Protein backbone atom coordinates (compact mmCIF):
# COMPACT_ATOMS: atom_id res chain seq x y z
CA UNK A 1 0.00 0.00 0.00
CA UNK A 2 1.35 3.42 -0.91
CA UNK A 3 2.63 5.51 2.04
CA UNK A 4 2.72 2.34 4.14
CA UNK A 5 5.01 -0.24 2.53
CA UNK A 6 7.83 2.21 1.77
CA UNK A 7 7.95 3.06 5.46
CA UNK A 8 8.48 -0.57 6.45
CA UNK A 9 11.54 -1.33 4.35
CA UNK A 10 13.95 -3.53 6.38
CA UNK A 11 17.12 -2.22 4.71
CA UNK A 12 16.44 1.35 5.85
CA UNK A 13 15.38 0.18 9.30
CA UNK A 14 18.62 -1.71 9.66
CA UNK A 15 20.65 1.36 8.67
CA UNK A 16 18.76 3.47 11.20
CA UNK A 17 19.41 0.96 13.96
CA UNK A 18 23.10 0.96 13.17
CA UNK A 19 23.17 4.75 13.18
CA UNK A 20 21.35 4.74 16.54
CA UNK A 21 23.80 2.19 17.92
CA UNK A 22 26.74 4.37 16.91
CA UNK A 23 25.22 7.56 18.26
CA UNK A 24 24.23 5.94 21.54
CA UNK A 25 27.89 5.31 22.34
CA UNK A 26 28.20 9.05 22.74
CA UNK A 27 25.55 9.21 25.45
CA UNK A 28 26.85 10.27 28.83
CA UNK A 29 24.15 8.31 30.67
CA UNK A 30 21.22 6.03 29.78
CA UNK A 31 18.19 7.93 28.50
CA UNK A 32 14.42 7.60 28.78
CA UNK A 33 12.18 8.55 25.89
CA UNK A 34 8.40 8.65 26.22
CA UNK A 35 6.14 7.89 23.30
CA UNK A 36 3.01 9.80 24.24
CA UNK A 37 0.57 8.18 21.84
CA UNK A 38 -0.91 4.71 22.28
CA UNK A 39 -0.74 4.18 18.52
CA UNK A 40 3.03 4.41 18.81
CA UNK A 41 3.03 2.01 21.78
CA UNK A 42 1.13 -0.47 19.63
CA UNK A 43 3.56 -0.16 16.68
CA UNK A 44 6.63 -0.34 18.93
CA UNK A 45 5.48 -3.68 20.32
CA UNK A 46 4.13 -5.02 17.06
CA UNK A 47 7.47 -4.51 15.32
CA UNK A 48 9.64 -5.35 18.32
CA UNK A 49 11.39 -1.97 18.15
CA UNK A 50 12.06 -1.78 21.88
CA UNK A 51 14.01 -5.01 21.84
CA UNK A 52 16.46 -3.97 19.13
CA UNK A 53 17.33 -0.63 20.71
CA UNK A 54 20.63 -0.32 22.58
CA UNK A 55 20.48 -0.86 26.36
CA UNK A 56 21.07 2.83 26.95
CA UNK A 57 17.75 3.82 25.41
CA UNK A 58 14.61 3.04 27.37
CA UNK A 59 11.15 3.67 26.00
CA UNK A 60 8.46 4.80 28.43
CA UNK A 61 4.92 4.21 27.25
CA UNK A 62 2.84 7.29 27.90
CA UNK A 63 -0.81 8.08 28.56
CA UNK A 64 -1.93 8.63 24.96
CA UNK A 65 -4.55 5.93 24.83
CA UNK A 66 -7.99 7.53 25.26
CA UNK A 67 -9.50 4.30 26.50
CA UNK A 68 -6.76 3.84 29.11
CA UNK A 69 -7.25 7.24 30.71
CA UNK A 70 -11.04 6.95 31.04
CA UNK A 71 -11.91 7.12 34.75
CA UNK A 72 -14.24 4.51 36.21
CA UNK A 73 -16.92 7.06 37.04
CA UNK A 74 -17.27 8.11 33.39
CA UNK A 75 -17.57 4.48 32.37
CA UNK A 76 -20.30 3.99 34.96
CA UNK A 77 -22.11 6.98 33.43
CA UNK A 78 -21.82 5.46 29.96
CA UNK A 79 -23.11 2.12 31.21
CA UNK A 80 -26.02 3.80 32.96
CA UNK A 81 -27.01 5.54 29.70
CA UNK A 82 -26.78 2.27 27.78
CA UNK A 83 -29.11 0.57 30.28
CA UNK A 84 -31.84 3.22 29.98
CA UNK A 85 -35.10 2.27 28.30
CA UNK A 86 -35.41 3.07 24.63
CA UNK A 87 -31.71 3.88 24.19
CA UNK A 88 -29.39 2.58 21.49
CA UNK A 89 -25.84 3.16 22.73
CA UNK A 90 -23.17 3.29 20.03
CA UNK A 91 -19.43 3.12 20.61
CA UNK A 92 -16.06 2.35 19.05
CA UNK A 93 -15.17 -1.29 19.71
CA UNK A 94 -12.19 -0.34 21.92
CA UNK A 95 -14.46 0.82 24.72
CA UNK A 96 -16.42 -2.41 25.19
CA UNK A 97 -14.15 -4.05 27.77
CA UNK A 98 -13.08 -0.94 29.70
CA UNK A 99 -13.90 -1.67 33.33
CA UNK A 100 -16.26 0.62 35.21
CA UNK A 101 -16.57 0.24 38.96
CA UNK A 102 -18.73 -2.90 38.69
CA UNK A 103 -19.28 -3.91 35.08
CA UNK A 104 -18.33 -2.96 31.53
CA UNK A 105 -20.29 -2.28 28.34
CA UNK A 106 -19.91 -5.88 27.20
CA UNK A 107 -21.66 -7.07 30.36
CA UNK A 108 -24.32 -4.38 29.99
CA UNK A 109 -24.96 -5.70 26.48
CA UNK A 110 -25.31 -9.22 27.88
CA UNK A 111 -27.85 -7.82 30.36
CA UNK A 112 -29.94 -6.66 27.43
CA UNK A 113 -28.70 -3.14 26.73
CA UNK A 114 -28.83 -2.27 23.02
CA UNK A 115 -25.15 -1.48 22.47
CA UNK A 116 -23.77 -1.33 18.94
CA UNK A 117 -20.21 -0.99 17.79
CA UNK A 118 -19.64 1.51 15.01
CA UNK A 119 -16.68 2.46 12.89
CA UNK A 120 -17.55 6.15 12.57
CA UNK A 121 -19.73 8.66 14.47
CA UNK A 122 -21.57 9.08 11.16
CA UNK A 123 -22.71 5.43 11.42
CA UNK A 124 -24.23 6.33 14.76
CA UNK A 125 -26.09 9.27 13.22
CA UNK A 126 -27.40 6.93 10.54
CA UNK A 127 -28.69 4.56 13.23
CA UNK A 128 -30.56 7.54 14.74
CA UNK A 129 -32.16 8.31 11.37
CA UNK A 130 -33.14 4.67 10.92
CA UNK A 131 -34.66 4.44 14.42
CA UNK A 132 -36.66 7.65 14.95
CA UNK A 133 -38.51 6.20 17.96
CA UNK A 134 -35.27 5.45 19.85
CA UNK A 135 -32.73 7.71 21.56
CA UNK A 136 -29.35 7.09 19.95
CA UNK A 137 -26.25 8.03 21.94
CA UNK A 138 -22.66 8.04 20.68
CA UNK A 139 -19.82 7.47 23.15
CA UNK A 140 -17.44 10.17 21.90
CA UNK A 141 -13.87 9.26 22.84
CA UNK A 142 -10.46 10.27 21.69
CA UNK A 143 -7.96 13.08 21.41
CA UNK A 144 -7.82 15.96 18.95
CA UNK A 145 -7.51 13.41 16.13
CA UNK A 146 -11.08 12.26 16.64
CA UNK A 147 -12.79 15.38 18.03
CA UNK A 148 -13.18 17.13 14.62
CA UNK A 149 -15.08 14.09 13.30
CA UNK A 150 -17.52 14.04 16.18
CA UNK A 151 -17.91 17.82 15.88
CA UNK A 152 -18.76 17.48 12.18
CA UNK A 153 -21.27 14.76 13.03
CA UNK A 154 -23.02 17.08 15.50
CA UNK A 155 -23.08 19.86 12.90
CA UNK A 156 -24.65 17.47 10.43
CA UNK A 157 -27.25 16.32 12.98
CA UNK A 158 -28.04 20.00 13.65
CA UNK A 159 -28.41 20.87 9.97
CA UNK A 160 -30.68 17.86 9.42
CA UNK A 161 -32.59 18.67 12.64
CA UNK A 162 -32.22 15.15 14.05
CA UNK A 163 -33.95 15.09 17.44
CA UNK A 164 -33.10 11.64 18.77
CA UNK A 165 -29.31 11.82 18.61
CA UNK A 166 -26.80 12.87 21.26
CA UNK A 167 -23.21 12.34 22.33
CA UNK A 168 -21.56 11.54 25.62
CA UNK A 169 -18.37 13.55 25.19
CA UNK A 170 -15.20 12.25 26.79
CA UNK A 171 -12.80 13.93 24.42
CA UNK A 172 -9.47 14.78 25.99
CA UNK A 173 -6.62 17.06 24.98
CA UNK A 174 -2.97 16.11 24.69
CA UNK A 175 -1.26 19.39 25.58
CA UNK A 176 -2.67 19.77 29.15
CA UNK A 177 -1.82 16.12 29.84
CA UNK A 178 1.77 16.67 28.68
CA UNK A 179 2.01 19.72 30.96
CA UNK A 180 0.77 17.64 33.90
CA UNK A 181 3.33 14.93 33.12
CA UNK A 182 6.18 17.41 32.83
CA UNK A 183 5.25 18.95 36.18
CA UNK A 184 5.39 15.55 37.86
CA UNK A 185 8.64 15.35 39.87
CA UNK A 186 8.63 11.50 39.84
CA UNK A 187 9.09 11.51 36.12
CA UNK A 188 12.55 11.64 34.63
CA UNK A 189 12.40 11.90 30.87
CA UNK A 190 14.98 12.93 28.31
CA UNK A 191 12.69 13.42 25.35
CA UNK A 192 9.34 12.77 23.71
CA UNK A 193 8.08 11.06 20.59
CA UNK A 194 5.16 13.35 19.75
CA UNK A 195 1.76 12.05 18.62
CA UNK A 196 1.49 12.06 14.82
CA UNK A 197 -2.22 12.24 14.18
CA UNK A 198 -3.07 14.62 17.01
CA UNK A 199 -0.41 16.88 15.49
CA UNK A 200 -1.91 16.49 12.02
CA UNK A 201 -4.86 18.39 13.54
CA UNK A 202 -3.23 20.81 16.02
CA UNK A 203 0.15 21.19 14.27
CA UNK A 204 3.65 20.91 15.75
CA UNK A 205 3.78 24.48 17.11
CA UNK A 206 1.79 23.78 20.32
CA UNK A 207 4.72 21.66 21.59
CA UNK A 208 7.10 24.63 21.67
CA UNK A 209 6.64 24.96 25.45
CA UNK A 210 8.22 21.53 25.89
CA UNK A 211 11.51 22.63 24.38
CA UNK A 212 11.36 26.21 25.63
CA UNK A 213 10.01 25.94 29.19
CA UNK A 214 11.00 22.38 30.04
CA UNK A 215 14.13 22.07 27.88
CA UNK A 216 13.15 18.68 26.48
CA UNK A 217 13.44 17.63 22.85
CA UNK A 218 10.37 16.32 21.03
CA UNK A 219 10.03 14.74 17.58
CA UNK A 220 6.55 14.41 16.09
CA UNK A 221 6.41 10.97 14.51
CA UNK A 222 4.46 8.84 12.06
CA UNK A 223 3.30 5.32 12.91
CA UNK A 224 5.16 3.01 10.55
CA UNK A 225 8.30 1.31 11.86
CA UNK A 226 10.68 3.53 9.86
CA UNK A 227 8.86 6.61 11.15
CA UNK A 228 9.33 5.59 14.77
CA UNK A 229 12.92 4.46 14.41
CA UNK A 230 13.82 7.63 12.52
CA UNK A 231 12.20 9.70 15.26
CA UNK A 232 14.27 7.93 17.92
CA UNK A 233 17.39 8.62 15.82
CA UNK A 234 16.44 12.31 15.52
CA UNK A 235 15.84 12.56 19.29
CA UNK A 236 19.16 10.90 19.96
CA UNK A 237 20.93 13.42 17.74
CA UNK A 238 19.30 16.25 19.67
CA UNK A 239 20.31 14.75 23.01
CA UNK A 240 23.89 14.04 21.94
CA UNK A 241 24.22 17.53 20.48
CA UNK A 242 22.62 19.07 23.56
CA UNK A 243 19.77 20.60 21.59
CA UNK A 244 16.12 20.68 22.55
CA UNK A 245 13.81 21.53 19.71
CA UNK A 246 10.45 20.59 18.29
CA UNK A 247 11.25 18.53 15.21
CA UNK A 248 8.84 16.96 12.78
CA UNK A 249 9.57 13.55 11.30
CA UNK A 250 6.01 13.22 9.97
CA UNK A 251 6.03 16.21 7.66
CA UNK A 252 4.13 14.31 4.98
CA UNK A 253 1.06 14.87 7.19
CA UNK A 254 1.91 17.36 9.92
CA UNK A 255 2.36 21.09 9.41
CA UNK A 256 3.42 23.66 11.97
CA UNK A 257 -0.05 25.11 12.34
CA UNK A 258 -2.07 21.95 11.74
CA UNK A 259 -5.37 21.68 9.93
CA UNK A 260 -7.21 24.98 10.36
CA UNK A 261 -10.55 23.64 9.11
CA UNK A 262 -10.46 20.79 11.61
CA UNK A 263 -9.45 23.09 14.48
CA UNK A 264 -12.21 25.60 13.63
CA UNK A 265 -14.82 22.83 13.48
CA UNK A 266 -13.72 21.44 16.82
CA UNK A 267 -13.86 24.90 18.43
CA UNK A 268 -17.26 25.61 16.97
CA UNK A 269 -18.89 22.63 18.67
CA UNK A 270 -16.73 22.04 21.76
CA UNK A 271 -15.35 24.14 24.59
CA UNK A 272 -12.87 23.32 27.35
CA UNK A 273 -14.16 21.86 30.57
CA UNK A 274 -12.83 23.58 33.69
CA UNK A 275 -11.24 20.27 34.61
CA UNK A 276 -11.42 16.61 33.63
CA UNK A 277 -10.42 13.49 35.52
CA UNK A 278 -7.89 11.15 33.90
CA UNK A 279 -7.51 7.65 35.22
CA UNK A 280 -4.29 7.45 37.15
CA UNK A 281 -3.37 11.08 36.54
CA UNK A 282 -6.25 12.69 38.44
CA UNK A 283 -7.90 16.00 37.62
CA UNK A 284 -6.16 18.01 34.89
CA UNK A 285 -7.38 21.59 34.29
CA UNK A 286 -8.81 22.38 30.84
CA UNK A 287 -8.00 18.90 29.56
CA UNK A 288 -11.43 17.76 28.38
CA UNK A 289 -13.97 18.94 25.82
CA UNK A 290 -17.68 19.47 26.38
CA UNK A 291 -20.39 20.34 23.91
CA UNK A 292 -21.14 24.09 23.71
CA UNK A 293 -24.52 25.38 24.97
CA UNK A 294 -25.54 26.18 21.40
CA UNK A 295 -25.58 22.42 20.69
CA UNK A 296 -26.96 21.43 24.12
CA UNK A 297 -29.70 19.31 22.55
CA UNK A 298 -26.97 16.90 21.38
CA UNK A 299 -25.34 16.65 24.79
CA UNK A 300 -26.15 13.34 26.47
CA UNK A 301 -24.92 14.72 29.80
CA UNK A 302 -27.83 17.16 29.75
CA UNK A 303 -30.36 14.85 28.11
CA UNK A 304 -30.06 12.07 30.70
CA UNK A 305 -29.61 12.00 34.45
CA UNK A 306 -26.31 10.35 35.23
CA UNK A 307 -24.80 8.96 38.44
CA UNK A 308 -21.86 11.32 37.85
CA UNK A 309 -19.77 9.92 40.67
CA UNK A 310 -16.04 9.85 41.06
CA UNK A 311 -14.88 6.32 41.75
CA UNK A 312 -11.38 5.50 42.95
CA UNK A 313 -9.32 3.10 40.84
CA UNK A 314 -9.13 -0.61 41.70
CA UNK A 315 -6.83 -1.15 44.71
CA UNK A 316 -4.48 -3.58 43.00
CA UNK A 317 -4.15 -1.57 39.82
CA UNK A 318 -1.03 0.46 39.15
CA UNK A 319 -2.33 1.97 35.90
CA UNK A 320 -1.68 5.50 37.14
CA UNK A 321 2.00 4.83 37.73
CA UNK A 322 2.22 2.94 34.46
CA UNK A 323 0.55 5.71 32.45
CA UNK A 324 3.06 8.13 33.94
CA UNK A 325 5.89 5.75 33.03
CA UNK A 326 7.03 5.50 36.65
CA UNK A 327 6.44 1.74 36.91
CA UNK A 328 6.47 -1.11 34.40
CA UNK A 329 3.48 -3.43 33.85
CA UNK A 330 5.20 -6.53 35.25
CA UNK A 331 5.71 -4.70 38.53
CA UNK A 332 1.94 -4.90 39.06
CA UNK A 333 1.01 -7.88 41.25
CA UNK A 334 -1.97 -8.91 39.16
CA UNK A 335 -0.32 -8.46 35.73
CA UNK A 336 -0.97 -11.52 33.59
CA UNK A 337 -2.66 -13.40 36.44
CA UNK A 338 -5.89 -11.78 37.62
CA UNK A 339 -5.52 -9.03 35.01
CA UNK A 340 -5.45 -10.11 31.35
CA UNK A 341 -6.94 -8.64 28.16
CA UNK A 342 -9.95 -10.97 28.58
CA UNK A 343 -10.52 -9.96 32.21
CA UNK A 344 -8.90 -6.54 32.56
CA UNK A 345 -8.80 -4.99 36.02
CA UNK A 346 -7.26 -1.76 34.84
CA UNK A 347 -7.68 0.16 31.60
CA UNK A 348 -4.08 -0.30 30.44
CA UNK A 349 -4.91 -3.96 29.86
CA UNK A 350 -7.90 -3.28 27.60
CA UNK A 351 -6.59 -1.89 24.36
CA UNK A 352 -3.38 -2.97 22.67
CA UNK A 353 -2.46 0.72 22.85
CA UNK A 354 -2.19 0.35 26.62
CA UNK A 355 1.21 -0.57 28.02
CA UNK A 356 -0.05 -3.57 30.04
CA UNK A 357 -1.89 -5.18 27.12
CA UNK A 358 0.99 -4.45 24.76
CA UNK A 359 3.45 -6.18 27.09
CA UNK A 360 1.01 -9.02 27.65
CA UNK A 361 0.41 -9.61 23.94
CA UNK A 362 3.76 -8.80 22.39
CA UNK A 363 6.33 -8.36 25.14
CA UNK A 364 8.79 -11.18 24.68
CA UNK A 365 9.44 -13.31 27.69
CA UNK A 366 13.16 -12.94 27.23
CA UNK A 367 12.98 -9.18 27.27
CA UNK A 368 10.88 -9.10 30.38
CA UNK A 369 13.02 -11.57 32.28
CA UNK A 370 16.11 -9.60 31.35
CA UNK A 371 14.59 -6.39 32.68
CA UNK A 372 13.38 -8.13 35.83
CA UNK A 373 16.85 -9.47 36.53
CA UNK A 374 18.26 -5.98 36.09
CA UNK A 375 15.67 -4.56 38.49
CA UNK A 376 16.59 -7.22 41.04
CA UNK A 377 20.30 -6.51 40.67
CA UNK A 378 19.64 -2.82 41.22
CA UNK A 379 17.69 -3.62 44.37
CA UNK A 380 20.51 -5.77 45.71
CA UNK A 381 23.12 -3.13 44.98
Amino acid at each position, binding site marked *: MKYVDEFREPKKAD*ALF*RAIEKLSQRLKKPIKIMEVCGGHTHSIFKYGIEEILPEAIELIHGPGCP*VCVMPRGRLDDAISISLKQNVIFTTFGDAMRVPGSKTNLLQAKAQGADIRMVYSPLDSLQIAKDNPDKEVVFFALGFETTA*PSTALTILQAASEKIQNFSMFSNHVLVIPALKALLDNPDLQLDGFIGPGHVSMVIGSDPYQFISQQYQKPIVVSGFEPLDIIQSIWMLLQQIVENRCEVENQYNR*LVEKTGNQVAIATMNKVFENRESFEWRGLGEIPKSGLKIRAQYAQFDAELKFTLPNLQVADHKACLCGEILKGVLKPWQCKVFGTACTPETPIGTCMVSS*EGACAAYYKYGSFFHMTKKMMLDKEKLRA
Partner: protein
Amino acid sequence: MCLGIPGKIIEITDVKQKLAVVNVGGVKRQVNIACIVDEQHSVESCVGDWVLVHVGFAMNRINEKEAMETLQLLEELAEAVAMDSYIAIPNDS
Protein backbone atom coordinates in the same frame (compact mmCIF):
# COMPACT_ATOMS: atom_id res chain seq x y z
CA MET B 1 -7.58 4.98 18.65
CA CYS B 2 -5.72 7.71 16.76
CA LEU B 3 -4.75 5.43 13.91
CA GLY B 4 -5.51 6.28 10.30
CA ILE B 5 -5.01 4.71 6.89
CA PRO B 6 -3.82 6.40 3.67
CA GLY B 7 -6.25 6.33 0.77
CA LYS B 8 -6.83 8.01 -2.60
CA ILE B 9 -9.96 9.98 -3.40
CA ILE B 10 -11.43 8.55 -6.61
CA GLU B 11 -14.84 10.15 -6.90
CA ILE B 12 -16.99 12.86 -5.31
CA THR B 13 -20.42 11.51 -4.48
CA ASP B 14 -22.07 14.50 -2.78
CA VAL B 15 -20.70 18.02 -3.22
CA LYS B 16 -23.01 19.62 -0.64
CA GLN B 17 -22.41 17.05 2.10
CA LYS B 18 -18.73 16.79 1.08
CA LEU B 19 -18.75 13.03 0.60
CA ALA B 20 -16.32 11.11 -1.57
CA VAL B 21 -15.35 7.56 -2.41
CA VAL B 22 -11.84 6.76 -1.23
CA ASN B 23 -9.78 3.76 -2.26
CA VAL B 24 -8.20 2.49 0.94
CA GLY B 25 -5.85 -0.39 0.14
CA GLY B 26 -8.14 -1.68 -2.60
CA VAL B 27 -11.35 -1.25 -0.58
CA LYS B 28 -13.71 1.53 -1.65
CA ARG B 29 -15.18 3.50 1.22
CA GLN B 30 -17.47 6.48 1.55
CA VAL B 31 -15.57 9.20 3.41
CA ASN B 32 -16.44 12.70 4.59
CA ILE B 33 -13.88 15.18 3.21
CA ALA B 34 -15.04 18.39 4.96
CA CYS B 35 -11.72 18.77 6.84
CA ILE B 36 -9.61 19.02 3.67
CA VAL B 37 -11.82 21.49 1.81
CA ASP B 38 -11.36 25.28 1.97
CA GLU B 39 -11.45 28.31 -0.36
CA GLN B 40 -8.22 27.27 -2.03
CA HIS B 41 -9.26 23.67 -2.45
CA SER B 42 -12.81 23.02 -3.63
CA VAL B 43 -14.66 19.73 -3.16
CA GLU B 44 -14.41 18.92 -6.86
CA SER B 45 -10.65 19.44 -6.94
CA CYS B 46 -10.09 16.74 -4.30
CA VAL B 47 -10.26 13.87 -6.78
CA GLY B 48 -6.82 12.25 -7.00
CA ASP B 49 -5.74 13.54 -3.57
CA TRP B 50 -4.07 11.14 -1.15
CA VAL B 51 -5.54 11.58 2.31
CA LEU B 52 -5.35 10.05 5.78
CA VAL B 53 -8.66 8.41 6.67
CA HIS B 54 -9.69 8.22 10.33
CA VAL B 55 -13.14 7.05 11.57
CA GLY B 56 -14.79 7.78 8.23
CA PHE B 57 -13.26 11.23 7.72
CA ALA B 58 -10.34 12.45 5.59
CA MET B 59 -8.30 14.29 8.22
CA ASN B 60 -5.51 15.74 6.09
CA ARG B 61 -3.91 15.56 2.67
CA ILE B 62 -0.67 13.59 2.39
CA ASN B 63 2.20 15.65 1.01
CA GLU B 64 3.86 13.55 -1.69
CA LYS B 65 6.95 15.75 -1.89
CA GLU B 66 7.64 15.55 1.86
CA ALA B 67 7.14 11.79 1.83
CA MET B 68 9.70 11.44 -0.98
CA GLU B 69 12.17 13.64 0.87
CA THR B 70 11.91 11.58 4.06
CA LEU B 71 12.53 8.38 2.09
CA GLN B 72 15.39 9.99 0.17
CA LEU B 73 17.09 11.00 3.40
CA LEU B 74 16.77 7.46 4.74
CA GLU B 75 18.13 6.09 1.47
CA GLU B 76 21.20 8.29 1.83
CA LEU B 77 21.64 7.22 5.43
CA ALA B 78 21.42 3.56 4.37
CA GLU B 79 24.15 4.14 1.77
CA ALA B 80 26.37 5.93 4.24
CA VAL B 81 25.93 3.15 6.79
CA ALA B 82 26.61 0.48 4.15
CA MET B 83 29.85 2.20 3.17
CA ASP B 84 30.66 2.70 6.84
CA SER B 85 30.88 6.44 6.28
CA TYR B 86 28.11 7.37 8.70
CA ILE B 87 29.81 9.51 11.28
CA ALA B 88 27.90 9.92 14.48
CA ILE B 89 29.84 12.94 15.57
CA PRO B 90 27.87 16.15 15.72
CA ASN B 91 29.23 19.08 13.75
CA ASP B 92 29.52 21.37 16.73
CA SER B 93 31.80 19.22 18.88
